[in-house]
C-alpha cells in the first residue's frame, strides 16, 4: 500500500472547476500551502471552499480569491481580507457563515457517517432560519447537516506512506475532521516517513481516511499576529 504522490500538482490533478473542497487550517495555521499553490497554478475556478477562514489577501485561500477561483466560501470567520470583502460586496463571491463549532462538528459528522447532528449554536439567531429546531431535555437544538464535498485537503506535521498523520500543536485544528470527511483526502506533510516510524498509539488521523500523501516543500508558515513578551 503506497499512497504517496510526487507533489502537490499530482495530488490535485483531478480537481475540477465547480468542485467543493474542504480545507484544514485555522487562520494561516496548519493550512495546506503546497496544495493551495498548486490549485492556483492549475487555474480551476467556481470552487466552493469549506474552511474555517479565507486566508489573508496574499496568503492561504486569499491566493485563490485573488485569481477569482472561488465561487462560495463556507466559513466561520472571513475577516482580514480586503479582496474577499471587495468580491463579496460586488456579488462575485458568495459566503455562508456558520458557527465555528458547527463547522467543525458538521465535518466530524461526515467522517463518522452521521447525516446530521443536533447542535446548540445559533438557536434563536439568524443561523437558525430554515432549520429544524427540536427540544431535548428542555434545551433547543438545531439540526445541522453533514458536509458533502469532492476533496478534502489537509496539512500535517508527519505522515507515512499508508496515510497515517500526526499534527503539531494548534496546527491540528480543523485538519483531522476535514481529513475524515473527504471523499478523496489529500494530505501534505512536512515530513514523510516509513510505516512503523509513527507510534501507533499516537496517530491523529488513521491512514484509512487519506488517499494521497506527499511531502510538501518551502513551507512559509506565516504568522498573523506576532505577539511576544520581553525577557526580564
Amino acid at each position, binding site marked *: 500500500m503506497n499512497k504517496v504522490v510526487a507533489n502537490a500538482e499530482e495530488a490535485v490533478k483531478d480537481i475540477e472547476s465547480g468542485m467543493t473542497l474542504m480545507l484544514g487550517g*485555522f487562520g494561516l*495555521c496548519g493550512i495546506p500551502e503546497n496544495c493551495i499553490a498548486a490549485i492556483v497554478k492549475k487555474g480551476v475556478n467556481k470552487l466552493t471552499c469549506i474552511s*474555517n477562514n479565507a486566508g489573508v489577501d496574499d496568503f492561504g485561500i486569499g491566493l485563490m480569491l485573488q485569481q477569482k477561483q472561488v465561487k462560495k466560501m463556507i466559513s*466561520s470567520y472571513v*475577516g482580514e481580507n480586503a479582496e474577499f470583502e471587495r468580491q463579496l460586496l460586488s456579488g462575485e463571491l458568495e459566503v455562508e457563515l456558520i458557527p465555528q463549532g458547527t463547522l467543525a462538528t458538521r465535518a466530524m459528522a461526515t467522517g463518522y457517517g452521521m447525516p446530521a447532528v443536533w447542535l446548540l449554536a445559533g*438557536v434563536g439567531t*439568524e443561523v437558525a432560519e430554515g432549520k429544524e429546531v427540536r427540544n431535548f431535555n428542555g434545551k433547543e437544538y438545531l439540526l445541522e447537516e453533514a458536509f458533502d464535498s469532492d476533496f478534502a485537503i489537509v496539512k500535517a506535521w508527519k505522515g507515512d506512506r499508508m496515510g497515517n498523520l500526526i499534527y503539531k500543536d494548534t*496546527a491540528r485544528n480543523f485538519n483531522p475532521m476535514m481529513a475524515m470527511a473527504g471523499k478523496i483526502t489529500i494530505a501534505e506533510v512536512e515530513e514523510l516517513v516509513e510505516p512503523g516510524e509513527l507510534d501507533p498509539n499516537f496517530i491523529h488521523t488513521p491512514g484509512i481516511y487519506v488517499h494521497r500523501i506527499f511531502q510538501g516543500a518551502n513551507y512559509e508558515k506565516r504568522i498573523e499576529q506576532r505577539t*511576544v513578551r520581553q525577557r526580564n
Partner: protein
Amino acid sequence: MALTKEQIAQRIAQELQDGFYVNLGIGIPTLVANYIPEGISVVLQSENGLLGMGPFPYEGEEDADLINAGKQTITTLPGSVFFDSATSFGMIRAGKVDLTVLGAMEVADNGDIANWKIPGKMVKGMGGAMDLVAAAKNIIVAMQHTNRAGESKLLPQCTLPLTGVNCITKVVTDLGVFEINDDGFRCVEYAPGVTIEEIKAKTAGRLVIADDVKEVAI
C-alpha cells in the same frame, strides 16, 4: 471614576475559582489572564484546540504552529494538551468550561447578546462566539457601558442580530457589575466615583439596584 479596561478585567478575575477551566474572548477578556488571583490555579482554553494556554513567547521563540483563537503566538504550560476543533467545541458544548468571558456590542436584560454583526457593514463572521454563548454555563460579558455615541449597551432588547439568547449571567462594564436575572440587570457593584444616578441614566434595559450594592473592590 469609571473602571479602565484593565480594571474591568481585574474585577472579572475575582470570579475565578481554583480549578476553573476558562475561555477568554478577544479584547478586554484576554486581559483577565493578567490578574489571576494568587493561589488560584485556572486552565485557559483556546477554542482552536488548546487547554493550558501560556503567556506570549519570548521574542525569537514564536512558533507559527502555536497560536490562540485570536491568532496570536502563545506558549504552552506543563499539563497543556492540544486537540482538534471538534473536540474543542465538544467540550464547550458539553459544559466542561466553567467560565466564559466575552465582549459584546449589546446585552439585553433577558440575557440575550449581540456581538457579531452590524447590518450594512461587512460581516466578518461569528467565529466561535455563537457556540460559546449557546453552550457555556457561566458567561460574563466585559464591555463598555455605552457605545461611542454615548448610548446604552445594556438594553431592553438587542437591536443588532443576536449571537445568543438568554445566555449571559453577568455583565461587567466601566460603570459597575450587573447580574442578569428575571428582573433584568441587577446592579451589585458600582465603579468608584460613579453614582447610581449615572448608572440609571446610562442603562436602557430594566435595572434593579441591589439593596447591598457596594463599590467595586479591586
